[in-house]
């Protein structure tokens, strides 16, 4: 994926975060997009990392969620047990900002295995806190590149639960940001295309999705990154090979 598409993805992801919200930030692209929001329209966004770090404002993009720079700039660092049981489980996290290897039409995420669990073709890192964040955050936003492998008709494994069959649950996936556009979930909890970047067509998105994708009656063309968004993105991404997802 080119750096322009990465920048568009980060900008669209960042715009979904509102000032003063508490966002639990995953590694990779979510980390980049949340730090972008914090530096632009959401200066009082509270960045929370599953390592227990509350309200970090790192001078540079942290490599891991447990970096010394995150700790140095934080309001506090909680024991992980406290963060998960007393803050996340009780609904104090507004947004879970997640990556993943695969997402399906219900917003279920797989970050565990490709192939059978007992003898995987590719063994991935596993849940970490993602299954818990998907359970408890008031909404989740997923940032993931858009291709047939990552948008399959059937997931090999459900690591982080999305919307149950046929219904939309309270909380759960609200948006999916990809390198083609922006998707949300309709009242039945089914993923739906609502926006594309300039130059991307709806049929291209459909071709790169592993099921017959629902499309909103009006698909907006997403506003390209502003000069401020581009400048901050470049400063953050400089020298980093931030993996996506």
């Amino acid at each position, binding site marked *: 994926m080119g750096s322009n598409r990465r920048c568009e993805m980060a900008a669209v992801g960042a715009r979904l975060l509102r000032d003063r919200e508490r966002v639990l930030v995953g590694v990779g692209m979510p980390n980049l997009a949340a730090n972008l929001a914090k530096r632009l329209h959401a200066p009082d966004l509270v960045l929370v990392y599953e390592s227990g770090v509350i309200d970090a404002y790192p001078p540079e993009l942290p490599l891991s969620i447990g970096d*010394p720079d995150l700790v140095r700039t934080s309001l506090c660092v909680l024991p992980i047990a406290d963060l998960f049981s007393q803050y996340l489980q009780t609904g104090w996290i507004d947004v879970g900002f997640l990556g993943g290897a695969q997402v399906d039409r219900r917003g279920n995420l797989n970050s565990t295995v490709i192939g059978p669990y007992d003898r995987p073709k590719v063994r991935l890192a596993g849940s970490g806190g993602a299954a818990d964040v998907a359970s408890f955050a008031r909404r989740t936003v997923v940032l993931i590149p858009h291709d047939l492998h990552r948008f399959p008709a059937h997931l090999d494994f459900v690591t982080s639960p999305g919307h149950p069959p046929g219904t939309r649950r309270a909380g759960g996936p609200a948006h999916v940001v990809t390198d083609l556009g922006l998707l949300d979930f309709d009242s039945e909890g089914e993923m739906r295309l609502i926006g594309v970047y300039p130059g991307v067509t709806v049929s291209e998105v459909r071709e790169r999705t592993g099921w017959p994708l629902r499309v909103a009656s009006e698909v907006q063309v997403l506003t390209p990154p502003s000069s401020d968004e581009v400048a901050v993105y470049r400063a953050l991404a400089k020298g980093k090979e931030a993996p996506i997802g």
Partner: protein
Amino acid sequence: MDVLTVREAVRRHVEDGQNLYLAGFTHLIPFAFGHEIIRQGRRHLTLSRATPDLLYDQMIAAGVADRVVFSYAGNPGIGLLQAFRRAVQAGEVEVEEYSHFELIARLEAGAAGLPFWPLRALDNDLTRLRARPRVKSPYGDEDVAVVPPLCPDVTLLHAHCADEDGNVYAWGLLGEVREAALAARKVLVSVEEIRPAGSLRNQRDHLVLPGFRVESISVEPWAAHPSYVQDVYDRDQDFYLEWDRISRDPAATSAWLERFVYDIVDRAAYLSLWPPERLSRLREAARIGVQ
């Protein structure tokens, strides 16, 4: 409580077949203990840890483990743990897998001496594979999921300092260190430095464990490298990137283990293999906050 070298602590207290928890979430990872366990040739271990990190990748590559209990087996911010991934794909190690919340809840049950710990998390394929039970609240209609206790035979950890009575002090990101220690039968601790008995009483807010809960203290500066000790030395990010490259190649992984683990006698010898400028840069970064 004894003051022992890392070698002696492992020789006396770590046995084949045990369930070990080498604690520390990104921060304070006890690499010196892990390398010593490899050198002493322990086998058939169950390695428990929320985030296996590079340390368990190295221990798995060295063949010490039969089983890994974990919740996130990645190289944080970089990618996957390649030796772990190869071993799992080849069926060489068994995995027992949780979400972070579930794994930490297991430690809380262990630390509190309770038969289970409740949590509200939704089901996923992991909980379905494991048939995670639920219990009904005796105080209402709710039912909640439960997980069983995790009680390591030995928890090993690294901390900033201890006093001569074995009281252990650390600060910064503590992750699940306290729960992992209190759930264990024995706790072995390495520290950057040791101070006279009673001299750290004014640091009580940083106390991690009282000495009566500790089996041994080992004074081992840099024991957490390439992870970090807040305010003492920063995380060696370059090595986390280098390991991604090394660990993709089984031969390069073995060569690294020969040079940095098997061929040396102790941590001082390990440190002599790194350019002094690199280590002083990590120390400086911890002091002023850039790297």
